[in-house]
C-alpha cells in the first residue's frame, strides 16, 4: 500500500510545511510497511527529499506556469493516487493545501479530515485525532472510506529526517481547465507569512496606533518572525486583514507567539492556542492573556519591547 504526500513549493523551493507532511507520511509508512511517494509541481530542489525518506517523487513540469491551479493539481494527483493505489493522501495546512485537499477527496472518492494533530491511532478503518472548535477541543474521527485525505495541522508533528534514495518520475501537467483564471499575484515576498512562521509577534490595541508598529516589526525582524495583530487592529485599518489572527482570523500554530498589548479575549486566544510557547507583554496584570500564557512581563510595551529587541540584536552579533 501507499501513502502519498502533496509537496508544495514556492518558486521551485519546497515549503517547510510540506517537509513536515512528508515526515508525518514517513512515520505512517514505517509503521504500516507502506511506500511513501510525493507529488510536486516544478520542484527544483528535490535532492532535499532524500533526507526525508521519500521513496518516489512525481515531479510535474508545469511549463513555466507557476500559479497554483486546484483543477490541474488535483487532477494530476488523483491519477497518481489511482496508479499507485494510495490509501492515504497527506496535505499540509497551508492555504493552497487546504484548498486542494477537499477537492482532491471528491475526485478520488476519499474522506477528508482536516486539522489532524497526531499520527493515526488505528488503520483500516483509519482513526485520527483532530482539533475542533478552533482549538477549544479535540476529537477522534474515523474515516468511513477506503481512502482518506488528511490535512496536517502545522507544527503538530515536526520535522523528522531519514536518509534514503528516491526515484524521480516526471509526468505531464494535466490540461484540465475551468472558468476560474488567475491573472496575477500580489505577494510580499520578503516577509515571513504567518502560516510558514516558527515565531509570530503580534500587536494589539495597546500599541495605540499604526505609527507605533515599528516596535512589532523590529522585534519580528530580529527573530525572523511573522507579524500579526488582533481583530480591532485590522478592523481599524492599522494593519492589513491578512494579519488578523484568532477565531475569526487566521489560526497560529507557531513555536513561539509573542503578544504585545493584546488583552487576550477568548476569540483571540482560541486562534493562537495551539502555539507551543506563548509570551505576553501587557501593562495590566489583570489582562486575561496572562492566564493563557507561558511567560509574561507586566510592563509598558513602549519600554519593554525596544529593550528586548536591542538585547536580541546584541545577542545575535556574538
Amino acid at each position, binding site marked *: 500500500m501507499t501513502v502519498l504526500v502533496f509537496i508544495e513549493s514556492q518558486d521551485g523551493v519546497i515549503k517547510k510545511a510540506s517537509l513536515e507532511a512528508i515526515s508525518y507520511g514517513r512515520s505512517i509508512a514505517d509503521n504500516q510497511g507502506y511506500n511513501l511517494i510525493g507529488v510536486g509541481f516544478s520542484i527544483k530542489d528535490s535532492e532535499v527529499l532524500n533526507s526525508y525518506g521519500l521513496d518516489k517523487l512525481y515531479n510535474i513540469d508545469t511549463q513555466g506556469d507557476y*500559479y497554483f491551479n486546484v483543477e490541474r493539481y488535483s487532477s494530476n494527483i488523483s491519477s497518481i493516487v489511482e496508479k499507485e493505489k494510495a490509501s492515504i493522501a497527506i496535505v499540509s495546512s*497551508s*492555504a*493552497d493545501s*487546504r*484548498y486542494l*485537499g*477537499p*477537492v482532491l*477527496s*471528491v475526485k478520488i472518492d476519499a*474522506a*477528508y*479530515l*482536516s486539522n489532524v494533530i497526531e499520527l493515526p491511532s488505528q488503520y483500516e478503518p483509519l482513526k485520527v485525532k483532530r482539533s*475542533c*472548535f*478552533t*482549538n*477549544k*477541543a*479535540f*476529537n*477522534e*474521527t474515523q474515516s*468511513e*472510506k477506503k481512502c482518506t485525505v488528511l*490535512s496536517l495541522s502545522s507544527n503538530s508533528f515536526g520535522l523528522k529526517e531519514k536518509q534514503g534514495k528516491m526515484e524521480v518520475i516526471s509526468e505531464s501537467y494535466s490540461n484540465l481547465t*475551468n472558468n*476560474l483564471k*488567475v491573472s496575477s*499575484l*500580489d*505577494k*510580499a*515576498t520578503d516577509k515571513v507569512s504567518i*502560516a*510558514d512562521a*516558527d515565531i509570530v509577534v503580534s500587536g494589539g490595541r495597546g500599541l495605540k496606533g499604526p505609527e507605533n508598529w515599528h516596535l512589532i516589526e523590529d522585534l519580528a525582524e530580529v527573530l525572523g518572525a511573522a507579524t500579526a495583530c488582533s481583530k480591532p487592529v485590522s478592523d481599524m485599518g492599522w494593519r492589513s*486583514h*491578512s494579519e488578523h489572527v484568532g*477565531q*475569526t482570523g487566521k489560526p497560529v500554530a507557531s*513555536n*513561539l507567539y509573542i503578544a504585545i498589548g493584546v488583552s487576550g479575549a*477568548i*476569540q483571540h486566544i482560541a486562534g493562537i492556542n495551539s502555539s*507551543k*510557547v506563548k509570551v505576553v507583554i501587557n501593562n495590566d496584570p489583570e489582562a486575561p492573556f*496572562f492566564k493563557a500564557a*507561558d*511567560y*509574561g*512581563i*507586566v510592563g*509598558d510595551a513602549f*519600554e519593554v519591547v525596544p529593550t*528586548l529587541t536591542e*538585547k*536580541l540584536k546584541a545577542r545575535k552579533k556574538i
Partner: protein
Amino acid sequence: MNILVCISNVPDTTSKINFNENNTSFDSLGVQFIINPNDEFGLTRAIWLQQKLGAKVTVVTVGDSTCEAILRKCLAIGADQAIRIDLKPQDGFQVASCLASICKKTEYDLVITGRESIDYNGGMVGAILATQLKIPYLANCIQLELDGDNLNLQREIDGGKEILTATFPLVIGAQKGLVEEKDLIIPNMRGIMQARQKPLEVVSPEINACNSLVQNYEKPAEKGPVKLVDAEDIDGLIDLLENEAKVI
C-alpha cells in the same frame, strides 16, 4: 441572478465548549448560537448584489429545527427565502451532498459558503459541493466584484493575495475582507417583522451518506500558571526562551 448562501449554525465565539453523553456529543445547554462569522460576510455580499442587481438570495442550512432562529435572522438581514434541510449532519461531506441536491433542483449562479465553520473547522463544504457539481470553487475569497458578465475575484494566500477572473456559475468560500466589518447588517425592527412573512421551507434530505464519524471529544489539559518575569529583567526572559523553552 440566483444566489444561494449556505449558513452554518455555530456556538457564539465566547461560548465555553463542553461535551456530554460520555464525551460523544456537543453540549448545547446554555449555548447561544450565531450565524457562522464567515457566512455572515458572504451573506452581506449577497445582499449587496440583491440591492444592486435585484439578485434573489436564498439561505440554506442543513440542521434540525433549532437552526430556524438563525435562518429567521438571515431573512431579517434581507435574504428573500430560506430552506432548511432536516438532518443533523455527521460530517462536511454529508452537508455538501445535501446542498448539492438543492443546487440540482434550482440553478444558482453563485453559491456562497464560508471559508470554514468555527465549530468543526472542516474548511471543506464549499470545495466538496463545487467539485460534486463540477463547477469551480474559489477558497478564501476576499473580493467579489461584477464587471458585466465577468467576475473579478481575489483569494487570500499565504503572504499575499491572488487576483482572478471567472464567470458564473461559481462557488466561493467567503471570509473576512470580502466586506468591511462596518457593512455587516444588524437587523432592524422592520426587517424582523418582514422576516416572519418570508418563506422558510423544510425539506427532507435525499442523501444520507457520510464519509467520516466523530467518535469522541476531549478538552485540552489545564495549563500551568504563567511564569512572570520582571520588566527590568529582559535578560531573564531571553534566558528562559533560549534555555528553558528552547524557542529562540
